[in-house]
């Protein structure tokens, strides 16, 4: 990993980073780390983290693709969840300070790394895969272009967890409320013309908590790094649940 930025104009940026190593720390604390960032070009928050890690190699965070595809580096950047790899410093910095915390609502494993088990447990409940009952066709299950289009804005989710961990209902009932990410995936398969388990999927969402704990706060829409709209997906499922009641 190279942490050298070949530029001549540098300025100091103070990063304020959440630190917690349960094997040595009694409780979490915030650490200031000063780094030199270029003034003549924008870098991403992840680049700044790499620079901070050079100063303090014990700093821990997840990252992989560094281009907003893998969803590894979701974190709370100056109070708002986002992906560090696609968040430019120019957008993130407030008053020449950058405060980084782990995504809220999930247990911290270390520093900016959270335990996402609860998040993936909820995703598992919505069975995020095609369920078919009819006999397999010879080649493939075909879709019209219009049917395929209805999945736009749904299949792009990278499961970074930014939305669910920004949702107060998920903080309060993480074991009962599925959260925006899982519900977006649920709608992705309910809306899929090839899926044949719509009724079963809706039955699973009929209780008071799984879906109906969404209060329309819309933090999920505000923070989604892919620009998706889980609130709309939740609303679509709710409409489907209500309309089948009347039929």
């Amino acid at each position, binding site marked *: 990993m190279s942490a050298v930025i070949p530029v001549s104009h540098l300025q100091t940026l103070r990063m304020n980073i959440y630190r917690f190593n349960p094997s040595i720390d009694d409780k979490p604390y915030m650490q200031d780390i000063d780094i030199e960032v270029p003034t003549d070009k924008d870098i991403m928050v992840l680049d700044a983290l790499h620079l901070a890690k050079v100063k303090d190699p014990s700093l821990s965070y997840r990252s992989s693709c560094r281009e907003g595809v893998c969803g590894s580096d979701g974190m709370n950047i100056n109070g708002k969840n986002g992906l560090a790899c696609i968040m430019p410093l120019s957008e993130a910095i407030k008053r020449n300070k950058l405060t980084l915390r782990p995504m809220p609502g999930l247990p911290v494993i270390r520093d900016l790394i959270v335990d996402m088990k609860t998040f993936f447990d909820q995703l598992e409940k919505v069975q995020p895969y095609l369920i078919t009952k009819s006999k397999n066709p010879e080649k493939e299950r075909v879709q019209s272009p219009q049917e395929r289009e209805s999945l736009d804005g749904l299949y792009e989710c990278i499961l970074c967890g930014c939305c669910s961990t920004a949702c*107060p209902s998920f903080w*309060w*009932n*993480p074991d009962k409320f599925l959260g925006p990410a899982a519900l977006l995936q649920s709608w992705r398969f309910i809306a899929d013309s090839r899926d044949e388990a719509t009724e079963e999927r809706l039955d699973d969402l009929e209780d008071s908590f799984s879906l109906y704990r969404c209060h329309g706060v819309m933090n999920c829409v505000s923070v989604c790094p892919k620009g998706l709209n889980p609130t709309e997906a939740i609303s679509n499922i709710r409409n489907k*649940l209500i309309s089948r009641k009347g039929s």
Partner: protein
Amino acid sequence: MKFLESGTNEFLIIRACALFMFLYGVYLIYFVVSNPGMDYLLWKSFFEGLVIKVFSTLFLISFAVHTWLGTWAIGSDYFTPARLGGFSKIVYVSYRFICFLIVLIVFIWSLIIIW
């Protein structure tokens, strides 16, 4: 699934009650605005009609159901083990008891006044 364990039923009931209370409120406001020189006698005679008594009772039922379901939703959001740890159960039960008492007192007291 039982009727009252259905999120869809709760969702519809809460909104139906809210809609009814809204329409009742609009009608009351309309009555007040359309009678500019209204005095106590007119107000009293208005509430003595059988139809308005029935609708006021329906309003009270809507209020009780809406409040009961609404405060349950608020309580089960805020008073959870995730927020309050081991105290959540006692806080939640106390909160529900207080809500029940308030709704019951308001409901019965209002019924006595109306009828």
